[in-house]
C-alpha cells in the first residue's frame, strides 16, 4: 500500500514536470496568456460587473438638481395640494405645517433669525435653499408610512401647496418642471461652504 502510494507520487511529480515544461515551452514561443500570471500590478479593467442598461439607470435615477434637471413631466396646483396634504401629510406635520409633531414645514420667511430654544426654527420658507429639493424629497421619501407612493402630479401639487403656505408661490399658478427651479428661496443666500481648516482655529 505504502509502495503504491510512493509509485503514484513519482508518476504525479513526473506528470507535473511535463506539464510545467509544456507551459514554459508555450511561453517561450510567445503564446503567454498574461492574465494567468500572479502580479501586484492591476489590469486596466477587472471586468467584473456588467454594463448598466439605460432602462435600469432610468428606473433609479430619480434625483433632481437645483437647475431642474430630472424633474418629470406634469404639473400641480395649490388647491389639489391642499387636499392631498390634509389627507396624507397633516397627521405628522400639522394642519398648517407648523404644528408638528414632526418637522415644521411652514414659517414666515422673516422668522429665520428667531430661535426656538438654542435651535433655529427650520422650515421650507426660511431654511431650504432650493425649491427643487422639496419635490425631490417628497417624491423619494414621503409620506413616511408609504414612501414613494405619490404620483408626480401629486408631488407637484403638494410642493405648490407648501411653497404657497410659505408665501413663495401664487395659488393661481400651476407648478411644473419649467417654473419650479425658478422659485427664489429666501435662505439660499445664507448658505456658505465649510471653511474650517486643519489646525487650531475653532470655527
Amino acid at each position, binding site marked *: 500500500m505504502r509502495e503504491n502510494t510512493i509509485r503514484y507520487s513519482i508518476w504525479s511529480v513526473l506528470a507535473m514536470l511535463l506539464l510545467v515544461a509544456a507551459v514554459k515551452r508555450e511561453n517561450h514561443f510567445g503564446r503567454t496568456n498574461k492574465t494567468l500570471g500572479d502580479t501586484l500590478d*492591476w489590469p486596466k*479593467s*477587472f471586468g*467584473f*460587473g*456588467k*454594463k*448598466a442598461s439605460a432602462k*435600469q*439607470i432610468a428606473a*433609479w*435615477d*430619480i*434625483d433632481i*438638481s*437645483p437647475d431642474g434637471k430630472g424633474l418629470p413631466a406634469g404639473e400641480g396646483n395649490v388647491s389639489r395640494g391642499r387636499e392631498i396634504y390634509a389627507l396624507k401629510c397633516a397627521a405628522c406635520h400639522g394642519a398648517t405645517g407648523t404644528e408638528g409633531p414632526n418637522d415644521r414645514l411652514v414659517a414666515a420667511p422673516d422668522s*429665520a*433669525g428667531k430661535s426656538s430654544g*438654542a*435651535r*433655529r426654527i*427650520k422650515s*421650507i420658507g426660511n*431654511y*431650504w*435653499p*432650493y425649491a*427643487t*429639493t422639496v419635490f*425631490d*424629497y417628497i417624491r*423619494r*421619501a414621503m409620506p*413616511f408610512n408609504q*414612501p*414613494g407612493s405619490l404620483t408626480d402630479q401629486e408631488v407637484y401639487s403638494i410642493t405648490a401647496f407648501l411653497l404657497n403656505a410659505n408665501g413663495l408661490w401664487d395659488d393661481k399658478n400651476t407648478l411644473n418642471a419649467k417654473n419650479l427651479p425658478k422659485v427664489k428661496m429666501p*435662505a439660499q443666500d*445664507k*448658505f*456658505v*461652504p*465649510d*471653511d*474650517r481648516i*486643519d*489646525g*487650531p*482655529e*475653532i*470655527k
Partner: protein
Amino acid sequence: MNTTNDKNDSAGIRISRRNLLAGAAAATVVLVQTAQGKAFQAALTQAENMSDDPTKVPGVPPGTLGTRSAFEKPVKAPSDTSSRTPLQDLYGTITPSDLHYERHHGGVPAIDPAKYELVIHGMVDKPMVFTLADLKRFPSVSRTAFLECSGNYRGSNDGKLRPQEICGLVSQSEWTGVKLSTIFREVGVSPKASWFLAEGGDAAVMTRSVPVKKGFDDAIIAYAQNGEAVRPEQGYPARLFLPGWEGNASVKWLRRIELSDAPFMTREETSKYTETVAGGKIRQFSFTMDARSVITYPSYPAKVEAGWIEIRGIAWSGRGKIARVEVSTDAGKSWKTAALQEPILDKAITAFRHLWQWDGNPTEIMSRAVDETGYVQPFLKQLLAARGGNMGYHFNPITAWYVQKDGQVLFKAT
C-alpha cells in the same frame, strides 16, 4: 486519527444521558427526539445553566454562536430616529457590532444580498451595475476607523447624563470592502466630475453629495464590519464609508452612485446636516468631524471612592491621528498629558488613561483631545462664541464630570 466530529458528538450524548439517568446534574445538555427518533443534544444557555459551584456541573457544550455573559447587559439607547452606543460600558476601542450606534431616516431595510445591485453612472466612461459578489471580487481593504453622527451632542442641567446620552452617536469598527477609487477606476470617472451622489436603498432613499476627491482619497464601499457581514443597521449588504467624515454622508444600503460636476443639494445636505454659524450664515458640506474626547470612567452613573482611580476615555479626530489627550482633575485649572494606548490610528478612536489619586474633595475632571493638525478640543463657551451663539451639528465640546463629595459622578456642561 479517524475519529469524526459525529463520533465525538455521540460520545457527548452518551455522557449526558448517563448524567440525566442518574439524575446527577442540573442539565447542561438536554436530549431532544427528532421525528425520526434520533436523539440530539440541545444546549442550554449559560443563564439556564447557572449554578452555585460551576466546578460541580458540566458546562454548556460548544455552540454555533457565542453568547454574551448573562451578567453583562450593555444596551443601546434608542429614540425614534437613532440609537446610542453605551460608551460607559465598553473597553478598548472596537465597538461590538450589535452595540454600534444607529441613525437612519426610514428604518432598517431588509435587503436580499442575492438581489442587491449597485449602479454607478453619470460622468463615467462605462455605466456599470455590480452585484455583491462582484464587489467582493475586487481587491479588498480593511480599515479601523470611527463613525460619528454630526448631531452627536446632548447636554442637561441636572447632570444625569451618561456618555451614551452625551455623545453615544460614535462607534468604531474594522470595516472591510473595496476602495471606491478601485470602482472609480473600473468605470472610468471623467476628470471633469467633481461630486458624486450616494443613494441608499432604504425607505428614505437617502442621498448625499460627496466630493469625488474623497472617493479617490480613502472612501470604501464596505461589505464587512468586525470580521462579518455588515449588520443590517449599518447598511447590509454594502454601505459607503467615509473615514473621518460626518456619519450621514456614509450612505448605508448603497444602491446608486451618480457622478456629476456639481452637488445635488439633497434634503439632508441643505435642510438638515447644516449649521447656523456666526453672521446668520448657514454652513454647508461641513464633512470633517472635529477632534473630541470623553472620559468614560468615571462618568455618570458611576460612584467612586477616594484613592487611586484610573481615569479612562476615548479620543478621536476626523482630521487624522490623535496627537495628545490632556486631562484635568481640578476643573480645568491645570492639565496633564494622558497615556495613549497603541495603536494610534488615523481617524480612529484612541483610548487614553490617566492615574489620579482622588482626595475625596468635590472636583471636576475633564479631558481634551489634540489632533495631529494642532486642533484643540474647545470648551462649550468657545464653540458658542465661534458660532454666533448657535448650537447645532458638529458640536464637540469638552465634557466635564463633577465628582461630588459622596463620590457620585455627574455630567457638567463646560
